[in-house]
């Protein structure tokens, strides 16, 4: 018996047999690995096709494209009522903001857009200055630009603001206010000082434990009682305070997650080189912690953006409320008006949120590769 064996020539490298790796086999593996799975493919594909067709048929084929009023949209078998959207679109963006003053809102959109772009695209420099502008100067500027009454601008009160403008203002306030308050609360909750720690914890847990509707309800009915008699805070302001407190509590927990992810060695090293508590936090810990939680922060912004629709419950005319209130317009009320309005609303909210979630995934991938290196 001989054990020895030596291969003298290489076995040929061949392509895989067609039954296991050809196009057909790959298709079978992806769409029908088992008969039951194949059946599921057919059923689900049919369902998807039917849904897609229904939507296309409603939104495009049988849609009413131009009409002076609701007449055509009320016809039997009519699809989406696009003339309604056309007639209301500007109101949905600006609310009741005076037409000749809308350039102010446009300027606010433009400045915010540019600044946000600068913050979000990693390649654009001057992040620090930009953040300073976005978180400090821009909110103040927005307030004075929109409200006016200074610098020769006509005064436009907040009850005339509305639509997407207000939705974005609410979201922006939530974002801008939640960052500093949230960071302070997160530090407070991790502090060694019992008074600070328990107060921060209590605030975070109480706010996170109740629904946003309750917080907004509290802001709208209780704040007026807390103010000195005779002072009646602005309706929008009350909503903004509610949203800011709410988002700050959630932001605090997100940031705390990031702080916990920072290894102890970073704290020890900072103290070893003689940094004070605040310097250590500002220069070493926070930059790292915030970087880790960027996806988490963006996710809480997505929730916040969706939650802005709740301010309509306490009577603010945000985008959601603005669109809904148009349904009752006698000129446009028809069988398809509501459907069309909700469809547009869905598209707008979805586009914003989907873009944010994609951005968060993009950053997550970037961070991951950064860590591996």
């Amino acid at each position, binding site marked *: 018996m001989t054990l020895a064996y030596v291969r003298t020539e290489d076995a040929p490298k061949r392509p895989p047999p067609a039954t296991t790796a050809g196009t057909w086999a790959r298709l079978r593996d992806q769409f029908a690995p088992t008969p039951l799975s194949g059946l599921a493919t057919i059923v689900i594909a049919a369902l998807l096709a039917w849904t897609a067709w229904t939507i296309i048929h409603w939104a495009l084929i049988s849609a009413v494209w131009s009409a002076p009023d609701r007449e055509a949209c009320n016809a039997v078998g009519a699809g989406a009522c696009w003339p309604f959207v056309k007639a209301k679109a500007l109101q949905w963006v600006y609310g009741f903001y005076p037409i000749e003053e809308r350039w102010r809102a446009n300027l606010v959109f433009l400045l915010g857009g540019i600044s946000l772009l600068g913050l979000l695209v990693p390649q654009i420099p001057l992040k620090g200055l930009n953040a300073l502008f976005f978180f400090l100067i821009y909110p103040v500027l927005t307030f004075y630009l929109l409200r006016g009454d200074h610098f020769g601008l006509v005064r436009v009160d907040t009850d005339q603001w509305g639509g997407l403008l207000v939705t974005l203002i609410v979201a922006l306030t939530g974002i801008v206010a939640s960052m500093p308050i949230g960071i302070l609360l997160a530090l407070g909750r991790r502090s060694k000082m019992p008074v600070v720690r328990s107060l921060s914890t209590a605030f975070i847990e109480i706010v996170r434990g109740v629904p946003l509707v309750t917080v907004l309800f509290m802001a709208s009915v209780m704040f007026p009682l807390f103010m000195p008699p005779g002072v009646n805070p602005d309706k929008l302001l009350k909503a903004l305070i509610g949203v800011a407190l709410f988002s700050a509590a959630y932001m605090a927990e997100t940031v705390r997650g990031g702080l916990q992810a920072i290894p102890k060695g970073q704290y020890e090293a900072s103290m070893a080189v003689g940094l004070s508590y605040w310097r250590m936090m500002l220069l070493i810990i926070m930059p790292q912690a915030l970087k880790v939680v960027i996806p988490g922060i963006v996710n809480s912004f997505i929730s916040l953006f969706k939650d802005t629709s709740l301010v309509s419950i306490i009577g603010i005319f945000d985008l959601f409320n603005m669109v*809904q209130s148009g349904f009752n317009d006698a000129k446009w009320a028809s069988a398809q008006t509501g459907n069309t309005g909700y469809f547009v609303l869905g598209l707008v909210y979805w586009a914003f949120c989907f873009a944010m979630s994609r951005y968060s995934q993009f950053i997550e991938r970037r961070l991951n590769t950064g860590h591996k290196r």
Partner: protein
Amino acid sequence: MTAQSPGELRQPPSREAGPFAWFYSPRVRGWLTQLAVFLLLAWGLYAIIFNTQANLKKLNQNFGFDFLTQAAGFDLSTSLIAYSSNATNARALVVGLLNTILIAVLGIIFATVIGFIVGIMRLSRNKVVAGAATLYVEVVRNIPLLLQIFIWYALVLKPLPGVKGAINLFDMIFISNRGVTMPHPLFEEGAWLAPVFLFGALVATWFFRRWARKKQEQTGKSTPVWLTSIPIILLSPVLGLALAGWPLTFDYPSLAGFNFKGGMTIVPEMLALLLALSIYTATYIAETVRAGILAVSHGQSEAAAALGLSRGKALRLVVIPQAMRVIIPPLASQYLNLTKNSSLAIAVGYPDFMYLGGTVNNQTGKAIEVVFILMVVYLGLSLLTAAFMNWFNSRMKLVER
């Protein structure tokens, strides 16, 4: 500080010895900060209490919970317990709490079922199955829940026929824009046998299961427990009723004028809320389930396969027990989110706890008291969930070195 040996307890250098040395002590600084925070808070509280008192005086109101025992004076579309406009405000709030719990429990059940199915679908090898699940998650979770509630309310439930043209199923169930109306079971004398039998069947199943497990431990043979006991559990209440001579009648709904008489109705507001809550929360549960299953390393199922366990047994004995540890804590917080989100009922007018809080406040003007009750109840629910999560985590934590 006696008997100093060289190199021990030397006085620290100059700065500490100055007149402001105390200022450099971290402990003193800590206490000062806390004192400042405390004073700030006390001042704020004082201002709030002072202002509130002044405001209440101006409104001719006083602080107190006596409004709870006064008559509510408003009607409700749906209630689980007896309620009329003569009932007290407290009872109205209880009706709301019960409705909130009802919607939360039903929503949790539906969301869990949908979420688990979709989460597992997303892991499918079949591209169409996985793609459809992904599409569902990406579309539904990026649209505000409030909008979804209205979409279900307006696009699906409103177009249903009116009472006159209601969809009639066997003259028993009527589907119309007033909701789903169905027979209301009325139990008479002797109907208690049904729950007793059901309870008996459950107890028997429990013993049967114990016996089956013992038998397996001793002989290795397994007994199909669920296959035999589920029919028994389902049939036992029927058997109980049969023995008692069918003490069960149904109050059938019938058309009377412009509405139904008799029967019980699930109002469309509740259906819209339930659909939206379940379908929306299910997307988050699906992601949780997917992450949980992915968190169990592939090596675990390989090791189970190498030991000869079938795919089903490997899932049941090895993968799922490990995945559940990852899934359950975020699942509990999703349940809590669903419960909190059910407060959006206020937007469609389903009388849940939040809605009734708002109504009672409108009727009585007791803003502070109402907000207080709302916060305490929702917080209580949250704390219960948190307590469960802590208990679960400590129980299920994997033992490590």
